[in-house]
């Protein structure tokens, strides 16, 4: 194996995983051989290793050469970037606002307005917000990096509203079958954040309690809840797969609408089952027993959390119900229009 062979193999190692890799290597080898031959005939020297080294040095490092073949030398390309910024702003604003409100509520309900506990809760709350915001940012980047690679170019181009936008569209009825990309991407991001939170950071979901020298943590959900995780994950994943498929195809079809109906029906069913399962919340009389008596009124806190859990679940059911109704309506409307 001569230097040229080794060089070509080295370039191959750094080539992006795309079709025609072997072709690129073959062409590179043929070019280098041509160049060597040319160099030998013009200089009158014999081809030797010194000449190969000279040539390869001029040609450039294997990494550099391999990089020139990378069609996407970036994580999120210029075409998706404005969309990425838009989603990032929306999601970060929503997440930070919700967490700020939660921290505020916690600080007010858990402690009197002064003292170290109050400062502690605010400090930890803000710290939590920063780390959650960073996690959310990472998730959004990851999703867009994947979208950049799975969406066909035509789809990405179609997202450039300024170029495809036609003032006449203001007067036109929107096509009821066209998907709303912003909604889909936002949904993907939130579903992804949900998966990440529930699977990777369940410890964020709960209540921290500080007394003078100790910290107590009561998780929001009990082990009973986490038994449902495979089902929750399956629904979340189905949702993401459907959303990406819709993004690629840009149009609702009867099949995707039925898939949407099934997913929403499954999430409603699951939410109802979870609601009806006893001891699903971690905040129980048991968990409050460990806390110092004086620092907390367990009974009333339990009531508050039970109530807010029921309310959140009810919201989930209502939202899923609306989505389900929209999909059913769309399904009938499409079949009606076709008749």
């Amino acid at each position, binding site marked *: 194996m001569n230097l040229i062979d080794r060089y070509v193999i080295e370039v191959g190692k750094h080539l992006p995983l795309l079709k*025609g890799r072997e072709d690129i290597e*073959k062409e*590179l080898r*043929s*070019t280098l051989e*041509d160049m060597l031959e*040319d160099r030998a005939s013009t200089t009158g020297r014999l081809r030797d290793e010194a000449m190969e080294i000279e040539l390869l040095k001029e*040609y450039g490092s294997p990494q550099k050469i391999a990089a*020139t073949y990378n069609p996407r030398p970036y994580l999120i390309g210029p075409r998706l970037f404005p969309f990425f910024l838009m989603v990032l702003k929306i999601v970060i604003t929503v997440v930070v606002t919700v967490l700020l409100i939660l921290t505020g509520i916690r600080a007010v309900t858990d402690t009197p307005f002064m003292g170290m506990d109050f400062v502690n809760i605010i400090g930890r709350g803000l710290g939590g917000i920063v780390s959650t915001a960073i996690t959310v940012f990472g998730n959004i980047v990851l999703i867009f990096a994947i979208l950049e690679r799975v969406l066909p170019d035509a789809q990405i181009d179609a997202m450039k509203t300024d170029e495809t936008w036609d003032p006449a569209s203001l007067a036109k009825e929107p096509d009821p079958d066209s998907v709303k990309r912003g909604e889909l991407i936002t949904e993907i991001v939130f579903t992804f954040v949900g998966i990440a939170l529930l699977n990777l950071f369940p410890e964020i979901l709960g209540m921290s309690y500080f007394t003078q020298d100790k910290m107590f943590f009561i998780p929001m959900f009990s082990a009973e809840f986490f038994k449902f995780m495979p089902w929750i994950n399956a629904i979340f994943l189905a949702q993401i797969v459907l959303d990406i498929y819709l993004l690629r195809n840009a149009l609702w079809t009867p099949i995707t609408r039925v898939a949407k109906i099934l997913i929403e029906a499954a999430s409603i069913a699951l939410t109802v089952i979870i609601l009806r399962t006893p001891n699903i919340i971690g905040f129980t009389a048991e968990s409050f027993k460990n806390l110092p008596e004086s620092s907390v009124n367990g009974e009333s806190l339990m009531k508050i959390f039970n109530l807010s859990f029921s309310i959140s679940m009810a919201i989930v059911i209502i939202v899923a119900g609306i989505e389900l109704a929209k999909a059913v309506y769309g399904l009938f409307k499409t079949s009606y229009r076709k008749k």
Partner: protein
Amino acid sequence: MANSESLDNVVLELRRGVIVLAVLSQLSDEQYGYSLLKLLSDQGLEVDQGTLYPLLRRLETQGLLESVWKLEEARPRRYYIISAEGKKLLPKLKKEWAGIVSVMDIMLAKQERRK
């Protein structure tokens, strides 16, 4: 230093825009990568290999070029030639180029006279 860097960047940008036209114009007869590189260089357009080869592949993916492997002198070479679609595009590109050149000539001549 900064000036020469920005000059280099602008020159690079200018040349980058021209290379597609240059390549399409030279591939009415089939050429392999290195022979095309030399053909361009002999006519005064130096193109970096790292630019030319990926560009050839991109133009082929876009359907503007066709390629075929041939075995010559015991060495396989990939020959490129302009496709039917490329042939349709080339006159339009030439016209665009002529337009740009004449507009810029007039603009720069006026600016010269104002000096």
